[in-house]
């Protein structure tokens, strides 16, 4: 039975069992991971997984159940469990399932040759990542990880209003985490690249980036506490974007869990700051023709030139706000209900190169690593994170620093952005250029 047939059969079964509205979601994936160390393969992982998640609506109450067992008995038990769960859930008039769209966009989301490329080539690719990193500098002494990974997936969704859709695709990537050592001190750095197209992978660039980042932190020390400029590396910006993306969901706003609640139309960031979610981005790692409920993916501007223009929506939050879903229903897997999540979420690039931004900074930190992003309070926006990077004096990178703490508030940070770089780079689902914030507290000694 194909995934599409399976989900349609489950929706029919739910209807027979008395569900007013129902939805079935099927997912199947096959993954390969290769890890090498010291030139030899250390770990190989091959995986296949599939399962079905069933959502049922009954008098406005929502029930959910999932199973990895696709036997008809197990599927019927899951339908019954979802119905039973709906009986104890609270009724909510905004619970709804989407109607079928006119059409879904065709997307080319995979590399059809990926499965044909021999395993040996992929192992060699991981070895090349490690080799180029180790060769970059004699102080690179330990491989924490050097890996190649690929994933093939297939998704089908059907609901009782007539949605019936399927999608498949693949992606692959490489990553390295390398450790540099000198004078009894160790520092690590990472490099990463994910793509829809195997030929685009550049193993040497991944290895060199990891080595470069590890070596540049050697000799890092703590400086005295100061208020100064902070130049955020694109990767660090994406860490903050992860917090922003959840604060920019309609769910967070509706439940008073967002620092942006009630601020649509207001200025929430400096001019020049534009934040976009684009589920249809060509070649995007998080692109798909439809979201976790079968709503077509699209591009949504959330902050335009500093002004808040809206929130990410799914069918439920959209109904509550009287707005359409933005196609941002996301599922962690078949085991989760569709919630709200970003797709390809990024800060739009500006004009300056990273080098120009650093050169125009009199004193501050070029921030390359943050720790403890989970401590950012998504409601108040207060944050206080561990920081490492390179100190900037008179437009020049000087000494590496670590063990510092950067504290402030997300809104202050967004309003304080005074330079946006042109170097937009994606780290899987989040993308950003270099960004400078005029003044933040950098605590040290």
């Amino acid at each position, binding site marked *: 039975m194909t995934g599409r047939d399976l989900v349609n059969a489950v929706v029919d079964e739910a209807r027979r069992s008395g569900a007013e509205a129902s939805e079935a979601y099927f997912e199947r994936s096959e993954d390969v991971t290769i890890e090498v160390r010291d030139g030899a393969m*250390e770990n190989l992982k091959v995986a296949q997984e599939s399962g079905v998640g069933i959502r049922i609506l009954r008098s406005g109450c929502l029930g959910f159940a999932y199973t990895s067992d696709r036997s008809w008995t197990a599927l019927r038990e899951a339908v019954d469990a979802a119905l039973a769960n709906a009986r104890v859930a609270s009724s909510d008039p905004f619970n709804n399932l989407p109607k079928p769209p006119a059409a879904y966009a065709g997307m080319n989301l995979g590399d059809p040759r990926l499965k044909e490329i021999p395993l040996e080539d992929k192992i060699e690719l991981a070895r090349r990542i490690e080799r180029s990193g180790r060769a970059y500098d004699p102080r690179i002494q330990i491989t924490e990880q050097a890996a190649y990974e690929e994933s093939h997936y297939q998704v089908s969704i059907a609901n009782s209003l007539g949605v019936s859709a399927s999608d498949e695709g693949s992606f692959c990537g490489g990553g390295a985490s390398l450790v540099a050592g000198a004078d009894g001190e160790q520092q690590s750095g990472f490099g990463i690249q994910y793509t829809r197209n195997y030929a685009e992978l550049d193993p040497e660039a991944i290895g060199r980036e990891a080595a470069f980042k590890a070596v540049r932190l050697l000799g890092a020390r703590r400086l005295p506490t100061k208020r100064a400029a902070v130049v955020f590396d694109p990767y660090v910006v994406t860490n903050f974007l992860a917090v922003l993306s959840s604060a920019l969901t309609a769910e967070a706003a509706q439940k008073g869990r967002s620092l942006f609640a009630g601020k649509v139309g207001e200025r929430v960031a400096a001019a020049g700051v534009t934040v976009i979610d684009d589920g249809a981005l060509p070649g995007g790692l998080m692109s798909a023709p439809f979201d976790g409920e079968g709503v077509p993916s699209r591009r949504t501007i959330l902050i335009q030139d500093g002004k808040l223009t809206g929130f990410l929506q799914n069918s439920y939050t959209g109904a509550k706000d009287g707005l359409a879903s933005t196609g941002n229903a996301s599922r962690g897997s078949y085991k989760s209900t569709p919630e709200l999540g970003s797709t390809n979420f990024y800060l739009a690039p500006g004009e300056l190169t990273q080098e120009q931004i650093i050169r125009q900074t009199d004193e501050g930190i070029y921030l390359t690593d943050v720790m403890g992003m989970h401590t950012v309070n998504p409601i108040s926006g207060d944050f206080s994170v561990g920081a490492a990077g390179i100190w900037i004096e008179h437009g020049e990178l000087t000494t590496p620093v670590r063990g510092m703490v950067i504290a402030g508030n997300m809104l202050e940070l967004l309003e304080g952005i005074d330079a946006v770089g042109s170097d937009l780079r994606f780290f899987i689902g989040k993308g950003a250029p270099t960004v400078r914030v005029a003044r933040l507290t950098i605590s040290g000694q």
Partner: protein
Amino acid sequence: MENIYTSYENNGGKRVLDKSELEEILRVAQRGSDFAEVFMERTESTRIGCEARQIERVISGREQGAGIRAVHGENTAYGYTNALDKESLLRLADQVGRAAQAGEVSPVALQRRESPVDLPVARRPDATPVEDKVALVREAEEAARRQDEKLLRQVTVGYADTIQQVTIANTEGVYVEDERVRCRMSVNAVAAEGTVIQTGYDSVGGTRGEELFDGEKPADLGRQAARRALLMLKARRAPAGRMAVVLSGEAGGTMVHEACGHGLEADLAQKNLSVYSGKKGAQVASELVTVVDDGTLPGRFGSFRFDDEGNPAQKTVLIDQGILTGYMHDHITAARDGVAPTGNGRRQSFQHRPIPRMSTTYLAPGETPPEEIIRETKSGLLVRHMGGGQVNTINGDFVFDVPEGYLIENGEVTAPVRGATLTGNGPDVLKQIDLVGKDFGFSLGICGKEGQGVPVSDAQPTIRIPSLVVGGIIEDDIVEEGEGD
């Protein structure tokens, strides 16, 4: 316990696996390599989510699958599938065996193993109606709301139970059937006044059944979470800079888990990825410090009868009065060091290979009354509830947030402070600890490593760290905010 697959229909209704079939699969997976293993799992779970006074999510699920591992020298091949029929597993075993080592097939004889650890379950979650679980969630929600109907803007309650049934068999003859029952509940409260918004959190969890929630436990959780959020509304911003930090026993052992535990996991230590690599026998901490990992503690969230390689849980002393005495091992790291496994080979599920992980990790109590530790601290920060943390095991640097902190002034606990984070270095902190209390408090969580989450607990007495960097806002900001309010 009966074989967990006998009563269950597989994909396509195919037959279940018995011991001799497992032996056959192991032979195919091993193919002349050093070691092969099959891990079969069936997990049933219930999750309930309550927010905005609504029971929003009621989710039940079943997941099953098997992971097969072959190890040869330093090479590990791992594969997993949802398909539990013999043909699918033989195919996977062949694929995994080839990847590790192609060689001769040798016989395997499985011997059933028992564990000395007893983890009784009084009321099974799968025998408890979902209505009763919803009632527990409501109890927590309402108790939180009652703390202050006006200032509490939001109360979120999460409930989860899992019953994980596993069968573990390997080419060394180990055969284990086990069932792990866990329940957990957490409450998150949001309080708001003017422009200030603060949150409070509390949770409970155990390797136990529904009896975990007896004695008004859900209401206690709700009250604690609400109290913390309301307290932090009145708190001033934490000071920034270096100061003495007293971690209260009530705060639990998150610090010892993050700042020391991870570095004592043998995989990291063996690869020179830990600040504790090659330090066995060395003085790595103040002599007041004894650190233990113990998976046998009754009912704790991090406890288990067997680890995920079929070794019984045990008590392992990691640091004895400041001297590093051992690491936490799984099968592979123990073989590499020529020591016995310590029952720390754990995995999130059949989708993952086991790696060395903590169970319940604690800093052992000392002799000083906790009140005396505060009295002897002229000025500093008292941490009464610890938030999440992160550690860089390579250099030992860590960061924690402090959801409930107070100033200590002239040996007395004074104003509550919010927004503090602790930044420091694990080995440095262990050496600095100069006072260890005689009290003892636990905390729990899901610990993440290499993309795998496993349930853990941790504990510690009240301790004093003479000098830590507290991140906050420096003085001119506090003044600005005071004026703004």
